[in-house]
């Protein structure tokens, strides 16, 4: 699948932003004025920059307002509705938090539940697609949620440490746990994709054309002379041979280095704020690589009509 930069940035940043909203909502934030304002502004910044970025991949963004209308059937519409609800409810909670230094428990918990539902519906936009066998698994929402929580905890721990609030180390310990869980889910997801090919999913060229019942089917003549929208979107080829290198970047920057730095921040003799800030920045870069692979490695059933990617599992694991 075509890895649109706007969608990569959107899923990564909004996941962390909504997670931070949820974590603040359940009362994990600090007391200081500077902390409160920075945390709320950053939560909004991550979520809103993510959401605005997603608009960039629309061909007719002027009609995006209609996207709130079809929540009965469409995960994309649900995500739109839920994200606006989350931003609104969190905003109400944040008013009391910012101006009265008071966390209204019921509103905060509601914001947290809505934040989880928003990230879940983002993931379901992909997990619902039977046409992309890599994505069509419960592991997809599990990974999106786990990475969101891990990123949110790291961001929260960093802010607590930077502003000298209590609990930075405790939150960092939770971030450590969340990182381990998230990457275990991702490892299971990668394990599954390695054997999930179009042919194995029953969507190979023989199935797509129904000609497999006669014999072995091979694409002989394409219907057009240069690549079209379908091939650019759903039979993405560019840069796939760098998948292995990118997976190493994702693991090193997304998992190994942040884990070491967070351990250093919690147990080491260094200033936790510096180590956590570095961990967060590196983790974000790693997550962008992880998301790039999420799209670029996934095979769509339409590729079968073009005879492309028939036995590709996850490229990087071969």
């Amino acid at each position, binding site marked *: 699948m075509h890895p649109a930069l706007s969608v990569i940035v959107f899923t990564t940043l909004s996941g962390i932003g909504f997670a931070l909203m949820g974590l603040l909502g359940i009362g994990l934030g600090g007391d200081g004025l500077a902390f409160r304002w920075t945390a709320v502004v950053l939560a909004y910044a991550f979520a809103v920059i993510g959401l605005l970025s997603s608009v960039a991949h629309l061909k*007719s963004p002027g009609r995006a307002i209609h996207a709130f209308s079809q929540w009965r059937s469409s995960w994309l519409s649900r995500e739109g509705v839920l994200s606006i609800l989350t931003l609104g409810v969190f905003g109400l909670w944040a008013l009391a938090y910012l101006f009265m230094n008071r966390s209204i428990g019921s509103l905060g918990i509601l914001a947290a539940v809505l934040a989880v539902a928003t990230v879940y519906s983002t993931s379901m936009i992909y997990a619902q697609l039977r046409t992309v066998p890599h994505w069509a698994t419960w592991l997809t929402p599990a990974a999106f949620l786990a990475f969101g929580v891990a990123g949110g905890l790291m961001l929260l721990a960093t802010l607590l440490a930077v502003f000298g609030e209590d609990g930075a180390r405790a939150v960092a310990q939770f971030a450590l746990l969340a990182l381990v869980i998230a990457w275990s889910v991702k490892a299971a997801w990668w394990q599954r994709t390695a054997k999930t090919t179009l042919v194995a*999913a029953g969507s190979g060229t023989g199935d797509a054309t129904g000609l497999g019942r006669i014999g072995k089917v091979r694409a002989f003549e394409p219907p*057009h002379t*240069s690549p079209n*929208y379908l091939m650019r979107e759903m039979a993405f080829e560019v840069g796939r041979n760098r998948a292995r290198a990118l997976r190493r970047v994702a693991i090193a920057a997304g998992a190994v280095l942040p884990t070491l730095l967070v351990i250093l921040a919690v147990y080491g003799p260094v200033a936790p704020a510096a180590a956590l800030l570095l961990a967060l920045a590196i983790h974000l870069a790693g997550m962008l690589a992880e998301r790039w692979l999420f799209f670029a490695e996934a095979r769509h059933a339409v590729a079968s009509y073009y005879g492309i990617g028939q036995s590709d599992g996850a490229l990087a694991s071969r």
Partner: protein
Amino acid sequence: MTTLPQTTNKKLGLVIDLDVCVGCHACAVACKEWNTGAYGAPLSDMDAYGAEPSGTWLNRVHSYEVKPEDKPAQIVHFPRSCLHCEDAPCVTVCPTGASYKRSEDGIVLVNEDRCMGCGLCAWACPYGAREMDMDAGVMKKCTLCVDRIYNDHIPQEDRVPSCVRTCPANARHFGDFADTDSAVSRMVAERGGYDLMPEQGTRPVNKYLPPRPKADAMPAGEGCGKHGARIPATPGGLLGWLDRALAVLD
């Protein structure tokens, strides 16, 4: 509304006969011609006269080589367009309500005034039936020539989809699959018409008729050798001498 109708009064669709299709692409061209001049925005082309021309088409004709185990390979031409699925995933994923399936005849359409061009419907379709119009910024798909089939201003014989009307080989047929006695329903029953990728659970309305078995096909491996003389493996005469001389050097 992007929820699907429980049932549709009619199930209009196409039968595509892979035994008859000669791969001339006339259906694709006629489709492009009709749909660029009629309903909705034209089907745009990008870099139409350049090195990498690319455009929006609602019908594409692939050709495949099919190799049975014990017979020589055969070529099958394969037109691919919207199948107007009963469980159309392209409709339910649409966030704006631009995509819909009509309850009266089952045709799946796009209301271009509501489409924001997110492309998710194209991702949801396993058949590659939807293509983004890169100029208009909206999703395009086969309308089953909804502006022809009910059109009182054109002669009766033209009130079928443009691809069906133009097919010189008569490989494409249009009709109502809800009527078990219709020509298309009978054809599907007689010829073993099948669904594409049934595992996707889309319940396509359009059906494909398989190529008929080739009764007189030669067994694999015999090829032309049976009919034409073969060159002997070890030639005689001058060629034989050359062959032996070269063998010394080999």
